[in-house]
């Protein structure tokens, strides 16, 4: 697994996505899938940067590995912030008109629709989100 720790701040986003792009390029991931993965990672990272540590500082650890057998990329995202299961939130209604639409929850919806599988666990005071994308 390739791992890197980032400061959980919005400004760090380009660094996070640069790391994701460089790593998944090695798995011959098509550009369209690469972009979709980056959007999903951005949504999860931004949630952590905004909410995990309140007004304080903290980190996010991102691990990326490739499972040859299932031909899938596995992302493991860990933070030490407040316990938060992003999968618990109900999905927003995406059939409403522009006027009735609210923006909340779209980020996690994008992550769910992009990934083949997302699992959440809270262990040893850590939020651990595992996202799997078959390529």
């Amino acid at each position: 697994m390739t791992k890197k720790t980032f400061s959980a701040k919005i400004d760090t986003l380009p660094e996070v996505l640069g790391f994701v792009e460089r790593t998944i390029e090695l798995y011959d991931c098509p550009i369209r899938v690469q972009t979709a993965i980056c959007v999903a990672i951005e949504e999860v990272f931004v949630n952590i940067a905004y909410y995990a540590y309140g007004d304080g500082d903290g980190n996010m650890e991102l691990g990326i590995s490739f499972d040859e057998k299932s031909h899938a990329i596995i992302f493991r995202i860990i933070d030490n912030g407040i316990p938060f299961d992003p999968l618990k939130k109900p999905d927003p209604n995406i059939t409403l008109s522009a006027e009735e639409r609210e923006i909340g929850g779209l980020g996690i919806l994008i992550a769910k629709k992009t990934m083949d599988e997302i699992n959440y666990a809270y262990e040893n005071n850590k939020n651990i989100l595992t996202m799997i994308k078959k390529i």
Partner: protein
Amino acid sequence: MTIEIKKTAEETTIELAGRLDTTTAPDLDKIINEDIADAENLVFDFKQLVYISSAGLRVLLGAQKKMQKLGSMKVTNVCTEIMDVFEMTGFSDILTIE
């Protein structure tokens, strides 16, 4: 991301290049609500835009709500990667995409 504004008598066009993400979306929001707050027919040209996340969607939704009252809005030259995000989120149904 770079943002370029082009105005004609009929419409105001915003040409975007690069990535519309959490770090760049506030710049676009500011331009829409301050610099071209008087636009009646707004066109987003996405020809050189390669990436959008929910922060970008938030700005587009705000613009759509506003332009529904003031005039019109459309999004042009959308690439496959961005169309994927529009379709996942139902934005393909609420935006006028040409």
